[in-house]
């Protein structure tokens, strides 16, 4: 099969696009960095919404970005089952866009946190298929607003449908039930606060994120096989 093409949307204020593109290339994909006014996603096999501060995170993180012209196109892909991953700011945007349930509030400590963080794999998803349940990983987080919040019925649904993908082992930001990452009911849209691309190479001192990104690239290949050509 030919290489998969991953779209990486850039909003004004996004800053992790080059990092994600680097990682996509590392794991065999073709990275296509697209400006947020792009509406044509033809030939795109998967999407990773990178981290950063779209629109400065003013008002609320992700609140303005989700209105960008590229977002309806991404939503359409997701309805076809194409794997969509939101990392950090990308997760916040997916929540604001209602492609994932819940919201991300300020960290309980009211401080920005950039540090290695322990995670536990809770369920299988496009980013955890190569990792068995219960696997412990160390991946950096980098956010002020990563405190996952939702109401009780949303939470019960998340649990019932196994939508919780990752939990912190030592909840650094006050997230409900230590949630670090979730997926949608269909399990093709995933959002997580930790940055696997920052932990994908030995030279950076940590490659725990590599299996996550490889899982994602696997999921993209499976989805391509499932989709009509």
């Amino acid at each position, binding site marked *: 099969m030919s290489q998969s093409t991953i779209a990486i949307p850039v909003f*004004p*204020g996004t*800053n*992790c696009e*080059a*990092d994600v593109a*680097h*990682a996509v290339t590392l794991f065999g994909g073709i990275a296509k960095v697209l*400006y947020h006014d792009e509406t044509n996603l033809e030939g795109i096999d998967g999407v990773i919404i990178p981290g*950063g*501060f779209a*629109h*400065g*995170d*003013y008002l609320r993180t992700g609140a303005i970005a989700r209105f960008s012209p590229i977002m309806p196109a991404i939503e359409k892909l997701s309805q076809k089952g194409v794997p969509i991953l939101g990392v950090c700011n990308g997760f916040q945007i997916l929540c604001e866009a209602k492609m994932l349930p819940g919201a991300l509030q300020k960290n309980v400590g009211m*401080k*920005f*946190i*950039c*540090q290695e963080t322990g995670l536990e794999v809770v369920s299988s998803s496009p980013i955890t298929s190569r990792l068995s349940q219960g696997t412990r990983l160390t991946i*950096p987080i*980098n956010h*002020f607003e990563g405190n996952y919040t939702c109401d009780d019925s949303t939470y019960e649904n998340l649990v019932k449908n196994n939508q919780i993908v990752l939990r912190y082992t030592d909840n650094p930001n006050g997230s409900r039930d230590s949630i670090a990452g979730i997926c949608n009911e269909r399990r093709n849209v995933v959002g997580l606060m930790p*940055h696997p*691309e*920052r932990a994908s*190479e030995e*030279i*950076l*001192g940590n490659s725990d994120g590599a299996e996550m990104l490889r899982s994602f690239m696997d999921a993209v290949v499976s989805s391509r096989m499932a989709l009509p050509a």
Partner: protein
Amino acid sequence: MTATMENQTPLHRQLGLTDDELEAITQVLDSRAPNDLELAMFSVMWSEHCSYKSSRQYLKTFPTQGEHVLVGPGEGAGVIDIGDDMALAIRIESHNHPSAVEPYQGAATGVGGIIRDIFSMGARPIACLDSLRFGNLDDARTRYLTEGVVSGISGYGNAVGVPTIGGEVIFDKCYKGNPLVNVMALGVLPKSRLTLAKASGDGNLAVLLGSATGRDGIGGASVLASAGFDETSETKRPSVQVGDPFTEKKLIEACLELLESGLAVGVQDLGAAGISCATSETAAAGSMGIDVDIAKIHLRETGMTPAEIMISESQERMLAIVTPQNLDAVLGLAKKWEIDASVIGKVNNSQRFRIFRDGFDSEILADVPVGALGDGPEYNRPNIRDTQLDDRQKVDTNNILAEKFSNTKNFNNETLKVLAQPTIASKAWIYSQYDHQLFLQTVVKPGADASLIRVHGAKAGVGITVDGKGRWCALDPYHGAVAIAIEAIANLSCVGVVPKALVNNLNFGNPEHPEVMNTFSEVVRGTSDVCLASSTPVVGGNVSFYNESNGVNIDPTPVFGVVGTRESIEGKIPGVAFNEDDVLVLVEPMSAKSSGSGHVTLAGSELATMFDLRDGMAPVLDINSSLKTCDAIRKVSYDGVISAVHDISDGGLVTCLAEMSCASSIGFDVAIESNSETTLALFGEGPARFVIGVHQDDLAKVMKEFSDPAISATVIGRAGNDRCKIAHDSDLAVDLEVSEIKEIWSSALSQAIHQ
């Protein structure tokens, strides 16, 4: 801006200009008295902050040449070649006074300003480092300042998308009324994109990009930075600037695209003195003239006077000089990146800097020779060595402390107390608030001796550190500066990096005090000596005078940012953490071993400061053997034949070993023989000394690297187990559990902040 009737002080003096300076301005204007607008512009541009009028004659003496230097001091940033057609832009800047008034915004706008200097050269900003000085944390206002400054750097740097990959902080009572906030930034560019801020070409247009102009910082940074602090500082408050990292991020992308596509002749950031400075400087640099149409400047507030508009220091603005043919393309780019753009001026051959009220056929509001604003006065201020210094240097701090502890054999308590000092303790509370991993480049992260990054597109690794222990310079400005510069080089050598360029931020007190001028010139001399000996040219710097509160000057505090390279980033990089069973070796210049040399001393040390002993002589280094020692360390680190290395700096040998232990969670058993007292052996400070951890099998090979007679290498013990033990002359001086040390060292700073 206008003189009020009841205030009899003439306007020029209210604006901080002397009578002689007014006279000089009148001469520049061919015997015409300046009008209020002209006077306002001169007052800012001729301030100490903008004109370097007290420091220029000394700064000229720095060595600035080197084969790899592409741009030296004087431009937005220094630029050096790092191979593979890639270059690095480097710059350091202070934002001391704005941060004392409003810590969050002061620090934030400091980060924003330095980043603009970098991308104005065509370089993509890839890293910041911060160098901070505060009073002691037992004071509530100091805690507020510390938290505010750190969150300001975090809030701006993280959001603008430039990782803060290292820094340093010292808490000392001399900074209580006047904290220091220095920020260093690094950018990377293909050599072909190097752009200087020059407005050449008759008929070219000056385009103002970015935020609208408001009243913020009217004469802010420059006026604040050119006067000391006292009770009236409250009145300086209305000029606080607020940063907008989002707009800056868009400006970075727009300006880099502008330069990459060759659409701009030159780009200049707007810093102190705002539009006056940027327009007149770019025109002067290109030996041109420039006309500015003040009505075209987009404003955020109503009712602004021409003077307010011309000297406003609103943040996140850039000036691009473009040809008329490229104008549409430039405006299109601004639209794509959602930033405002307006054509505010026109370059011509007149050699004049003229300001028009509304259109180029309207009233001329100001008309001065184009270079006059940038060509401020130069002073040869009285320079006299402080007569008290000789007496203070005679005080034998080593002996005072030795006597204080003459009956002490066990130093567990002192060890724990030193490790708990906020200046010594882990700085994780600070750097965990900074994004330090963006761009997947940070190979050695904050927490080590120097940060090490890989530069995408280049083979070389880049090391960077910032150091500046003012206490040493307070004891002896020449030797203090030498010691600080060597300390920075020593830190780089731990990550296998050769120093290539130095930028300095010279934070001093009031230059009108002759002793301050003397410490200044001595610091410059010391710095130059190390730069020459180590082939590390000075490529940029910044001077911050008037760091005083209520008439008391801070310790002279030069801060050196040193950048260097290693040929390749591949291979094993030893960290601070040693391995179980490693042999521990103390490596130092032979000259540091003899106790009479004064290389290692308690004067200025953390231990002495804890007892408020502030006299004695700074470390006196033999520059050549110190550099040789650093060279040897660099080699073993680069070759990866050692497993760990850490330099002995603040807090002495005990602290160095304890930090290695905290990094690895492994203990050590060390015995030191020396003819000095235990206090000096354990807590004495003086740079270019290292502890390395070596696997037994590699020991012989490693020791060979230290065979130069100028270097001493002594096996002092082994790593292992869970206790930290140091015997001195057969007394067990320290015996503590790793976990206890680690607990205290890791948490002391955050506890001191949240007390």
